[in-house]
């Protein structure tokens, strides 16, 4: 295999890995809402809006491999990351609760799960978006060489 082809194969795998993480996160989110019956709050919905489309966008970029997929998916991932950051700040009370936008319906600061003392649902989201952004940037760097 030529070096060129090998490089492009690695890029494909990297994108595939990103897609896998996105899809796993989407299914995890659906598990929380549909199986465990946790109602998503407003901020959760904004993060979902940024996350769910990535499943299809990244999959489209895989067949055939299109490096420009990064340009289309990064803005969504970054918007999701900022929403997740805001959500975490609310959640950990760094931003006072009075400022939160969801007074009706489900509270954005209601604690549903807390794994190992720090892994809450908003934290999972922030970690997920961070990973996705890192992988997409890595791919961008590799393909723009």
């Amino acid at each position: 295999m030529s070096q060129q082809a090998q490089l492009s194969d690695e890029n494909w795998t990297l994108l595939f890995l990103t897609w896998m993480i996105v899809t796993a996160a989407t299914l995890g989110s659906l598990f929380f809402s549909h199986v465990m019956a946790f109602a998503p709050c407003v901020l959760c919905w904004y993060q979902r809006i940024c996350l769910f489309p990535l499943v299809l966008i990244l999959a489209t970029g895989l067949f055939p491999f299109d490096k420009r997929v990064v340009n289309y998916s990064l803005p969504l991932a970054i918007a999701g990351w900022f929403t997740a950051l805001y959500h975490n700040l609310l959640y950990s009370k760094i931003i006072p609760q009075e400022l939160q936008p969801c007074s009706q319906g489900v509270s954005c600061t209601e604690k549903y799960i807390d794994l190992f003392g720090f892994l809450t649902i908003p934290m999972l989201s922030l970690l997920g978006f961070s990973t996705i952004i890192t992988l997409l940037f890595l791919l961008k760097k590799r393909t723009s060489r």
Partner: protein
Amino acid sequence: MKYKIFAGTCLALIGIFLATSFYYKAQQAEQYDAMAKNNLSTFVKAYSQTLGNADAKVVLVEFMDPACETCAAFSPIVKQMMAENPGKIKLVLRYAPFHDGADYFVKILEAAKNQGKYWETLEVMFNSQSEWASHHDPQPQKIWQFLPAAGLDLERIKQEMHDPEIAKRIEQDLADANTLNVRKTPGFFVNGRPLETFGAKQLYQLIQSEIKANY
């Protein structure tokens, strides 16, 4: 090759999702069964309002909110199921006033109990609900114009609805709703078993299966 990897991963992820869901539901059912056997008081409290034969072997526990539209829609359905199986079903009402300010209506309802007009009042509430419980513009005060239809002494209601005992009951019911994972109303349990998916047909089937098992 890449297509195969992709398709395989899709199948694997969906498979994992379905398997975990199935496992989670099974675990939950087991948990509820254990709770129904060992911890009956989480489902039924001494103060809870009941309807139907006190010795019925099928106990239908409903966590409800007087301001909840679906609870109002379910009321005739539940009554019809009870009428179809006379003496076999006991309905226990618990409160889960999740709507903003809905505890106000629960207080009126509990105060109406003192006048022996519980079910009449609930029916009036459900029938007039659209007038005072609109999501965009809730107007709790509007309920008072409908209450005389239940034959209530309104002055007495106004005095007794602020009884701290009633507030305590609401708090206890909400705590039990939380324990039982009730996050939406109405939340139904038939002999301690929750609905796996929500719906009138599903409730009907669950009740039928419990009647078959107990009679």
